[in-house]
């Protein structure tokens, strides 16, 4: 594995006093998918730091590798090369059980495809990660009801995902991501299926978690309101992070970096 020395040096400069510690650090992460003879370079060396309590947005055209990056930094998949550290721990060093623990306790995921369990009700879907964390019974139920209320689905507790609209499913997915009060929330297009108002509510919910609980929010999104709320925006193109900017550096009328 060859890593650009300069890049590495820059990464390990200790954060200045007052700057939040780094929760996720990716170094030259590459991902190649093989489909038969065809190689797809989904990520061509992504290097980034994500700080505690940060609201980070990732933008990029379809197929640029957002979901792939999301999977890498969320410890859902092993990179072909490169390193990912979560809370200073190299996740390549963790065994499958430790990875499971990490996914269960540290990170909340909102998948692009929702991935709700179709045979379970909304309530059971939200209670599932709690069960994996050892929280069961009445306590889990109460907490799950509370979270579902928060996303505005308090009246749909016992419905199966198939009985809900796309936006409602998306909100169940968000509720499920909050189940174990994670320090990091990874969301893949969390507002894609929501109307203006509910979308704004979700964005505000995430923003509030960031402010009140110091939760780190990472989302792949094209939603302007979400971009405007972010602390930092990464632009990814063809598997490479090409630009990083603060929202005030972007012209939202054209979605162009200034």
């Amino acid at each position, binding site marked *: 594995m060859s890593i650009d020395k300069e890049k590495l040096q820059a990464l390990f400069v200790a954060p200045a006093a007052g700057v939040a510690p780094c929760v996720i650090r990716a170094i030259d992460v590459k991902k190649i998918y093989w489909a038969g003879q065809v190689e797809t370079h989904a990520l061509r060396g992504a290097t980034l730091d994500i700080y505690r309590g940060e609201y980070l947005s990732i933008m990029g055209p379809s197929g640029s590798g957002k979901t792939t990056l999301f999977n890498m930094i969320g410890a859902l998949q092993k990179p072909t090369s490169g390193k990912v550290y979560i809370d200073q721990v190299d996740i390549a060093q963790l065994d499958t*059980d430790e990875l*499971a623990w990490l996914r269960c306790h540290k990170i909340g995921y909102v*998948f692009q*495809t929702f991935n709700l369990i179709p*045979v379970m009700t909304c309530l059971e879907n939200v209670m599932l*990660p709690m069960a*994996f964390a*050892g929280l069961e019974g009445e306590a889990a139920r109460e907490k799950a009801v509370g979270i579902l209320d928060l996303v505005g689905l308090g009246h749909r507790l016992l419905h199966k995902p198939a009985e809900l609209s796309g936006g409602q499913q998306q909100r169940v997915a968000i509720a499920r991501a909050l189940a174990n009060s994670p320090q990091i929330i990874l969301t893949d297009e969390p507002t894609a299926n929501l109307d203006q108002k509910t979308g704004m509510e979700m964005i505000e919910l995430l923003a509030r978690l960031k402010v009140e609980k110091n939760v780190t929010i990472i989302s792949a999104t094209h939603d302007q309101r979400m971009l405007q709320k972010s602390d930092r925006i990464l632009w990814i193109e063809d598997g490479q992070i090409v630009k990083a900017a603060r929202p005030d550096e972007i012209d939202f009328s054209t979605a162009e970096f200034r």
Partner: protein
Amino acid sequence: MIQDQVRLPLSVAIGVVMQGIRIRFGRSLITLMGVALGTAFLVSNLTGQAINAAVRQEEQSRSEVKRMASFLEAEMGPPRDRIVGVIQTGPLDENEQGLIRFLIDSRVKSIQWYNAAPETPISQSEEAECRRDVSLEGVANQAGSVLLMGSGPLPDVLTAPEPVASLFKDAAGKILACTRTPQGLASPPGVAVVELAREFTPEELIKIAEQKTQAQFRRNWITLISMVVTVAGIANAMLMSVTERFREIGTMKCLGALSSFVRWIFFFESSFMGAVGGVMGGVAGTVFSLAVYGFTYGYGLVFSSVDWVLLGVYLVLSVLVGIGLSIVAAIYPAGVAASMVPANALRTDV
């Protein structure tokens, strides 16, 4: 440290399994049938062997008694209203008891019983007059014949020719009928010694044993194949179940389910199937073989000769084997599910 914190949520696992079975009820039913069929095959084979052996023995014993009885009748004439002496040297076997029963059933006048081994109990319940207070000297008195039976040693008196002949001086028929080949019995003048027993020659014995082992081997072979087929069938059904739940399992792994949890789900599902299918198949197989053998040999014969405790043991054994087979069958599918890469479940095209 981490191990303790991600617990295996048992109730969740059970819920997932039950829901899975309910949703895929049709296929679960087929899996169940597979287990049931395998178990039924095993249990009906075992039970069949047991019934067959019991019936065979009962029949053999009955025909042996019949043969001895007709031998005896040929020597002494019909036993009705006759007196028969019995010299018992030790415990009686089934055939000898059957012969006594035959004498009683054919209404002998009385049986004069001398027991040379008083410590061995006599299990006969007598309707015919049965005099047990007879001395050895009086056993042949007025008797049409004297039976020598039991597994004990001969009384000393019978080893010399003269005393034996003198036993028969008041006998109606000078016949000494032995149910076994007596060792060291003197051949007394004027008394016919008849052997009712039929001894198998060593060649015959070997042949019988060979036939038995051959039949057993064939059966065990068939049973083994049926069990392999059962395991393959269950494994296949479980693999289908794994593929169908690919997305569900992957999502759970993304949400922090341990591999052991995923493995547990499949082992639980298959042992549940194994238990239910095993009980169904076990009961069905037992009933089936009882019905079939009852039909061929007659229900009376089957139900009277069969060892019910043994059948119960076989039933329990088969259910355990059914569960065992299902668990063995789940090893590979559960491994496949447990080693699944979580992110693969997140793709839309799966």
